[in-house]
């Protein structure tokens, strides 16, 4: 991982950890999804599994609806986990 990426990732995680103490619970979920996307973006240069990039497209869409439609967001997240489970089982 490059030095810039390390700074971005670690600062994001620690700032989020502190923020989550007071922020709405759903923000924590969002931060974890964001961390997924950030890590993936950093891994891109090291040729990660293409499946995770495809999954990220769904996750990006979900992040956009998180604040507007909580029900749809959670259903979408369930679907992402189903897809991930399928992928792991069929590996």
């Amino acid at each position: 991982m490059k030095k810039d990426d390390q700074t971005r990732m670690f600062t994001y995680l620690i700032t989020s950890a502190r923020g989550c103490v007071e922020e709405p619970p759903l923000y924590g979920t969002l931060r974890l999804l964001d961390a997924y996307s950030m890590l993936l973006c950093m891994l891109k240069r090291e040729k990660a599994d293409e499946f995770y990039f495809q999954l990220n497209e769904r996750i990006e869409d979900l992040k956009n609806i998180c604040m507007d439609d909580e029900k749809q967001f959670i259903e979408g997240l369930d679907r992402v986990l189903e897809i991930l489970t399928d992928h792991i089982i069929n590996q």
Partner: protein
Amino acid sequence: MTFDELVASRRSIRQYNSRRVGREKIEAIVNAAIWAPTAGNLQLWHFVVVNEEKNLEKIKLFSPGMPKTAPCVIAICVDLAEAKLRGGEFMKGIVPMDIAFAAQNILLKAYQLGLGTCVVKSYNEKSIGRVLKLPDTVTALMLITVGYYDKLPKAPERKKLSEIIHYENWESEVKLNEKG
């Protein structure tokens, strides 16, 4: 765009394009902010505008809730010591209201100028204070991202007026001239 259209169609923008925001527009936006109501006409607000890449990057590091592509951030800051000195303890509850009034003007003026905005409160105040080189008594109480966007998100649902309006007292039965 009429006032009603402006208010109802404004959205929080979390995805910006790379077009930079000119200083003229920023100043028009901040000028709208300072005409917001302010308790006792104290006008305790200061607006720190950040649009240099290097500084934006530092702000984003400590603002997990901030849209990553934002090309400009306005930090609304208040000297809380001055607030207490001029308005006493009472100001503790009032300052956030003043800031919110100013923020709403910013959001609407920016939208009128073709710009998107997003209010950000998920950031570490102390770290942001250091990045912005704020004096010890000054706090960034709200960050607002500003920038051009390609797509306006669809409107989320709003509660019906009949669910949230009460005439005379909380228990009143509401009969509204509500459409839809």
